[in-house]
């Protein structure tokens, strides 16, 4: 019998040399006259161990990593095809503590399933949610989503069920389901990992949404920075057969604009226009893509739904804390030793994530600051590391969880420099519609430069400018850029050298 070997085709694994490892394994097997089956799975999310090679054995999958091509002959010699002992052997994958301590729901198959095989997806429980949804009335599907407590995972954490109900209740001959896979936040990669590692889960979630709201056409808007994810989705769609019934999905590729992750700018972009934010109302749920009622959700929101229908809303709602129900795939990034994908129920502390999972900084120096929730998220000092990972607990300290990206910095970070970058990023990416965002951000860069040059009087000006941006911007790009800026100023005043009033 051929042994199955898994070498991730995930972009992070590729960036760390997985293709060369796959080639080395195929060649070494051929040289030894051994027939193997090579599967390019997604990543298990233990990025520091990539390329992580797994071998299917009667004891389950055995992991080896990080594997370099030069180690491949040695692995064969050590009998890794039967799970043999080797310095790189990590034991059964599922028992690696970092993974075993997680509770994976939405990402349960990422890194496990063959992303190119619908049959494998179904063999691992995929398709059950859609099968159930087909036997339910649309209102019942919406009720299940509402009862699960699922909130949008794109950043604003709006209850998914309410949005689904609005689209369902708006009568129109044509409606759309749009998946926001723009994932522009630095420090986030869960959308990418799911597209590359378990694309059928997303397709299933969107098809269920189509049944619930009465739409037969879906779009997935993926950022152009993710060509591997685009290819994985195209391959999955090509192999979908009649899995989606009469629901059709088209992939649309962005073009390097952060603000196109904002839902109305995204719709403009699909329509073939510049990605400029629309004024609301009307809500996309009422008049969205091509003027029709449109359900737009983040990718993780959609991908959470198959499991909610298959396991029941209660099973999902029973996890989490406070009003944050279920799990969130957190992403540990930046200067962190054990970075990657950590899916756990809401309610752990940030400190547990940073140290128990992350193992502290990659550099070995003390962690000094953490930015949570992307470029519009707050910089948190050590003193706030005990904050619970829950939407309300973060809101209470003027921060947000956003899409679950956590970027760690060691004590070499200069927070005045990070604040400057936040303003600069806003200036680069502003869609240009509002003056406080477009002009204010450029002024912000200048003011911070003067503060860093020693002019402490400019701090009051910076605070005023932030107030104007917060109040006078149409979308979160302009209104939330002050969050990283002011949190840096508040918690790391010593980095703004001029603070000497």
């Amino acid at each position, binding site marked *: 019998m051929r042994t199955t070997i898994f070498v991730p085709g995930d972009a992070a694994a590729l960036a760390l040399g997985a293709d060369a490892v796959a080639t080395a394994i195929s060649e070494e097997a051929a040289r030894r006259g051994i027939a193997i089956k090579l599967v390019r799975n997604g990543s298990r999310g233990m990025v520091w161990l990539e390329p992580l090679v797994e071998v299917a054995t009667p004891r389950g999958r055995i992991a080896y990593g990080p594997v370099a091509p030069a180690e491949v002959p040695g692995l064969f010699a050590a009998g890794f095809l039967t799970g043999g002992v080797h310095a790189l052997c990590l034991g059964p994958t599922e028992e690696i503590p970092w993974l075993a301590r997680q509770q994976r729901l939405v990402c349960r198959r990422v890194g496990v399933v063959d992303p190119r095989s619908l049959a494998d997806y179904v063999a691992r429980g995929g398709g059950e949610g859609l099968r159930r949804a087909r036997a339910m009335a649309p209102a019942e599907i919406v009720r299940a989503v509402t009862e699960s407590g699922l909130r949008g995972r794109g950043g604003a954490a709006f209850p998914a069920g309410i949005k689904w109900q609005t689209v369902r209740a708006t009568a129109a001959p044509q409606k759309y389901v749009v998946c926001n896979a723009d*994932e*522009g936040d630095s420090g986030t990669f869960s959308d990418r990992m799911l597209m590359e590692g378990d694309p059928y889960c997303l397709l299933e979630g969107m098809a269920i949404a189509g049944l619930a709201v009465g739409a037969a056409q879906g779009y997935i808007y993926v950022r*152009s*920075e993710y060509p591997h994810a685009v290819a994985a989705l195209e391959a999955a769609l090509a192999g979908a057969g009649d899995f989606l019934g009469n629901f059709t999905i088209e992939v649309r590729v962005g*073009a390097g604009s952060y603000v196109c992750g904002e839902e109305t700018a995204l719709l403009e972009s*699909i*329509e073939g226009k510049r990605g400029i934010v629309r004024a609301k109302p009307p809500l996309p749920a009422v008049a969205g893509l091509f003027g029709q009622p449109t359900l737009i959700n983040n990718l993780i929101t959609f991908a959470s739904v198959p499991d909610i229908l298959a396991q029941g809303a209660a099973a999902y709602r029973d996890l989490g804390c406070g009003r944050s129900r279920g799990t969130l795939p957190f*992403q540990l990034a930046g200067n962190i030793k054990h970075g990657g994908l950590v899916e756990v129920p809401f309610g752990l502390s940030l400190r547990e994530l940073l140290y128990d999972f992350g193992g502290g900084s990659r550099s070995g120096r003390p962690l000094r600051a953490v930015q949570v929730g992307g470029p519009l998220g707050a910089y948190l000092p050590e003193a706030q590391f005990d904050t619970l990972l829950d939407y309300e607990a973060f809101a209470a300290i003027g921060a947000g969880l956003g899409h679950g990206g956590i970027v760690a910095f060691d004590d070499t970070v200069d927070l005045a420099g990070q604040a400057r970058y936040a303003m600069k990023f806003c200036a680069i990416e502003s869609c240009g519609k509002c003056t406080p965002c477009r002009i204010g951000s450029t002024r912000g860069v200048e003011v911070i430069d003067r503060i860093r040059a020693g002019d402490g009087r400019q701090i009051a000006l910076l605070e005023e400018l932030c107030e104007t941006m917060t109040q006078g911007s149409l979308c979160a790009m302009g209104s939330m850029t002050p969050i990283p800026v002011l949190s840096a100023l508040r918690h790391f005043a010593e980095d703004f050298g001029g603070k000497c009033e």
Partner: protein
Amino acid sequence: MESSAIVAHIIEQHRVRPGALLPMLHAMQDALGCIPPEAVPPIAQALNLSRAEVHGVISYYAHFRQTPPGRHVVRVCCAEACQAVGGEALAEHARERLAGSGITLEPVYCLGLCACGPSVQVDETTLHARVTLEKLDALIAALESAS
């Protein structure tokens, strides 16, 4: 195929799709390396838009270029998670190293490789993680000797 024939072919392929402009522009840039100025009038005509509108879309998006790039395109991630592990120094080094090299350097704001930064993308699809200054030099040297 002549560049004008490629343009005409791509326009025919995409013109009937709803929201055809971005897919069309992507296909052109993939085929020609950029969106040449002479492509704008036929695109505008096919989609019933003004030339100014088409031009406005091309120039709005950072991904689209109107002139051909160098022999290779190197994108260095300049976003926060890469900054946390030396991304700025890497970008600065790349600027110095690639000046006058005939290789195009572009900033990119996150490649989704934030747990193994700093990250670099070469020619759209080749990815590199934990890129040190030395690794970048080797990578550039390989690009230069290959072309």
